[in-house]
């Protein structure tokens, strides 16, 4: 399927702030959703990882809100920051989730998100005409790059699991 998509149009600093905020808050929501799933499906290690990731993204979001000062990024984001087909760049892909997934998988998801966010802001850096927008975008690129590095570092602690990671000797259930 084509990965083209409608993306919010950035026509000023406030727009970028709003979009950046929205990206983080979408990511928070997504990580929390994944954490909920892991809670329901009895994978406590992953619950913790996703909650941590959500918390981290939440902190970024708050930073952006602080950056915006008195401007209400939250409602501005709701009005203009709608992403098309592939969704918000930093959202972890839901369909990659698995009840037996390991920290390595979670970090792969996170890495992909950070990389998409990095690419997204990098494109704004390239295309922006408004210097203030460009400057903020550069800052965001740097930050995302830092996140990418952080995830890479974390990944060293969690090597790729064996191919049998999803093996479940027990059969599925049929609750209805």
């Amino acid at each position, binding site marked *: 399927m084509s990965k083209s998509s409608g993306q919010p149009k950035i026509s000023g600093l406030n727009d970028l702030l709003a979009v950046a905020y929205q990206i983080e808050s979408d990511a928070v929501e997504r990580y929390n959703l994944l954490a909920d799933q892991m809670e329901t*499906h009895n994978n406590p290690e992953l619950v913790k990882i996703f909650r941590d990731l959500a918390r981290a993204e939440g902190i970024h979001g708050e930073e952006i809100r602080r950056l915006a000062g008195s401007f209400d990024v939250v409602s501005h984001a709701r009005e203009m920051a709608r992403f098309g087909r592939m969704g918000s760049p930093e959202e972890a892909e839901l369909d990659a989730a698995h009840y037996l997934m390991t920290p390595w998988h979670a970090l792969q998801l996170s890495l992909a998100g950070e990389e998409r966010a990095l690419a997204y802001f990098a494109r704004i850096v390239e295309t922006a005409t408004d210097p203030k927008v460009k400057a903020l975008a550069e800052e965001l690129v740097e930050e995302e790059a830092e996140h990418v590095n952080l995830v890479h570092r974390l990944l060293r602690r969690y090597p790729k699991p064996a191919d049998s990671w999803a093996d*479940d000797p027990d059969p599925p259930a049929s609750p209805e």
Partner: protein
Amino acid sequence: MAASPSISIAIVGSGGAGALTTVNFLLEVACAAGWHGLFTRTLGPQIRGGEAAGLLRLAVHPVECLPDQFDLIIGIDWLNAHRFGNEIKAGPQTLVISDPRGGEPPPMVTQSGARVVEVEMKEIAKSISGGRPNMIALGIASRLLGFTTEQVFALIAKQLGDKGTAAIEASRAGIKAGFEAAAGIGFEAELAKPVPSEARRWLLSGNEAAALGAIRGGVRFAAAYPITPATEILEWLSPNLTKVGGILLQAEDELAAINMIIGSSYGGTPALTATSGPGLSLMIEAIGLATAAEIPIVVIDVMRGGPSTGIPTKSEQTDLNIAIYGLHGDAPHLVLAPQSVSDSLFTTQWATFLAEALQTPAIVLSDQFMGQSRAAIERPADVAFIGARSVAANISGSYKRYALAPGGVSAMALPGMPGGQYTADGLTHTELGIPTSGAGDHLAQLDKRRDKLDRFNFGDHWASIEGSGDLAIITWGSLTGAAREAAARAAADGVNVRMIAPRLLAPVQPERLAAALEGVRRILVVEQTHGGQFHRYLRAHHDLPAPVRAFHRPGPLPITAGEIHRAIIDWS
């Protein structure tokens, strides 16, 4: 403590922990060593990754019910285990092995007074390449139960043969580590030595047993619409019917499934469908058609918690009413209930035989507990109940499909037979099958259909009747095992109890029940319903010769021998 004739183990662990597989391994090891056993699963609402527990009871004799309490409970982890509530009863005698990294044991354990021993199963597993905590649990349990590593390894080699040597090695290492971890743990319960026996033994579920029984009885066509907890019957039948020249068709819904089997049987091929409460509801209209048109069919209803969608994964006996009384009009038909995993084979086979012999629908009331439990049983004997309906031969002159034959059963022409052409009909009909609204024909055909059931000699299989006390337990279905055990315990207390469990629920056998109740002075009716359906049903059709107490409660928790025992003592 002296060796006990039975011992019970529960292993708890959430999705992926392999709790169920472990219990299954334990069962197989025990069976290979000559013990009997019964294995039930209990699961959370998730399809994958839910909390799970395997409940196992091993014994020197065949096992038909769960224990009152577990002797050994192993928590590989306790995530969401509180959802099992009272399903896994522990007591001060219980030994609990708990992985401290697997969360808090639930109240059912901590409040029971059970002795809890912590073993870091996950950590131990990590130290083994490819190690899994459930193999540690298997090792622990095996040692505590008195199995040898050789016994367990032999099974592993057989079961994991196709997983490669690395997997087998990892499992062996895990089991060994489990054995070591169990070394210092005292466990008082001890299972008595198996009783040597020459009997060939099987390990299977009630659903599988019922399916095999149907084939033995002659079924060669099945129509399937999946529903929990009956699906396994259909899934077992599908490849196995093919092996015996039969066919299974997946239907679009239960309305289609029931009509498909009527079509098959009309054509001469004995046919079956299996379902549960919601599906049975949808089949009601056509079961009435089969009754009126005198087409033999077998409908297995694996009961689950009701009403409506209810609790699909748990057992109850609450489809008794619909099975017996559910058809509109006066529509006598057969209702039978197996009494154990093993008896599921016999009763379903017999039901098939009876349906064919009496040209009428037979509803077989199994339940989730019996249907989905796996038990080690002695191979059921081959019995002579093989469906052979009365088929018309050498038809000459005008053929009367619904002739008023003496026993009520008239010979059936099958499509293809010259001269036998008739139209099967759900309308009130004459002996020729022609629609009529005449009072005489209506009455004659109603009499015919009633009499063929009432006058048939069902023989001794109609019920299990055991013991001779003046207190009689009347129960049915999968509660028979628990009632039998309760009676044995009461006998040990000096209270003689008679147990009567009808396998044939309809048509009623009033003389036979009266004879079975001769001399009885107290009656205890035991059933797993909220409304006391079985009790009401007994009252409706029998003059019970002594005061009655009705002990009944709904699911989802199985009624235990202990509960029945208490009810006996209270009523003695």
